[in-house]
């Protein structure tokens, strides 16, 4: 899966889909999409924070800007997957 998969544009603003609820868990959070009924597991507290704060940033890239290179790529890939599964949506 690549970060430039059609549909996901890290240069654009995104936010958590209002139909998605995040349930805090010891490992991070469980995300449930009330529309697709899909469950995802955000396996890092930092990813949960990132997703929650997404809409405070002008672009996705700005939201991950503080991360170092390997981390940043992993989180961008995770966000691309979340966009593909409609968990996050263009703001």
């Amino acid at each position, binding site marked *: 899966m690549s970060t430039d998969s059609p549909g996901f544009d890290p240069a654009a603003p995104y936010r958590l889909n209002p139909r998605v*609820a995040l*349930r805090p*868990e*010891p490992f991070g959070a469980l995300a449930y999409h009330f529309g697709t009924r*899909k469950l995802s*597991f955000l*396996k*890092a507290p930092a990813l949960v924070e990132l997703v929650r704060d997404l809409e405070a940033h002008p672009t996705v890239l700005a939201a991950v800007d503080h991360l170092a290179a390997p981390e940043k790529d992993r989180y961008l890939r995770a966000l691309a997957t979340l966009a593909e599964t409609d968990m996050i949506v263009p703001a």
Partner: protein
Amino acid sequence: MKLVDQFKKGLSAPICLTWEWTYACNLSCTHCLSSSGRRDPKELTTAEIKAVIDELQRMQVFYVNIGGGEPTVRPDFWELMHYAVTHDVGVKFSTNGLRITPLRARQLVATDYVDVQISLDGATREVNDAVRGPGSYDTAIAAMANLADAGFAGFKVSVVMTRQNVPQLGEFKAIADRYGAQLRITRLRPSGRGADVWDDLHPTQGQQRQIYDWLVRHGDNVLTGDSFFHLNALGSTSLPGLNLCGAGRVVCLIDPVGDVYACPFAIHDAFLAGNVREAGFGRVWRESPLFAQLREPQSAGACASCGEYDACQGGCMAAKFFTGLPLAGPDPECVKGNAPTTGLAIPAQGKDHSHRKRVALGMPSVPAKPCDPSPLAVR
């Protein structure tokens, strides 16, 4: 840490909550996991069920598997279903099809967050009715036709695999396809009346191989409630789903009288964690000593020397318990044939609501890709 290891330590709330709303049932399936038949006079009232739904909403339990008995025989069933889905608690309910009329089917299509699971244990009338009783095949098929006609796409057809129906796997798939449904196959457990018929109904070793091979080929489109993980010891391809016993960790049962058990297949005092009437569900989930113990690392027992333990995890706790096997050690259907077969003391079943004359149900699912370095796992 791997997600599956996180799951072993328990979650803030279950992922896979089965909630049986009544012990009453119009049928008397020979393998019923909850020995259902007659209503229990102490069953939770409408108000009590709504109070638990409110609590589940607060705990963010996003969906529940409603079963029984036959849940739709409760006169307040539709009211409760509506209450749940309007409180962010989605409902998947298991039914033998009894009340799925054309009108109800149309109402169900129009309701968000509801899924329906029709139980069928034979692809032919003969095989099904031998276990589920006369007329039950026709009832299930009529319900499927009503759902399909109403445009309910992707409802579930749920099959408990038995020695008699393993040869019908392809036919089950064809039936599900015919009605635009999704097939779900689950493992028979020696729970409830299932204990009485276990020796005659549980699949042979050869059939276990057949199920495994079939799932490896068709698994992507077939649900299993992640119930066949003990078959992972048969090959290098891991079946999709969660590879562990979730009892008390991500799985649990609320029974019709409000008792909370570690797993729907474990209705027995040994697995009773508390009652929702006393303290609510959340306190039982978070504070029960039994659940705390199940969330501790478990001993592999005699499985420790088996090379397949990582893949198979020693199988199903309930299956071991109700066949008199130690919980640390091989499953009664251990594919390596390592389960002891002699000198076993079979425990009595916990509750019996069987019809007095003498004359059914399954588990939900969770994801996990072990060793996945991504900070995300998508179901």
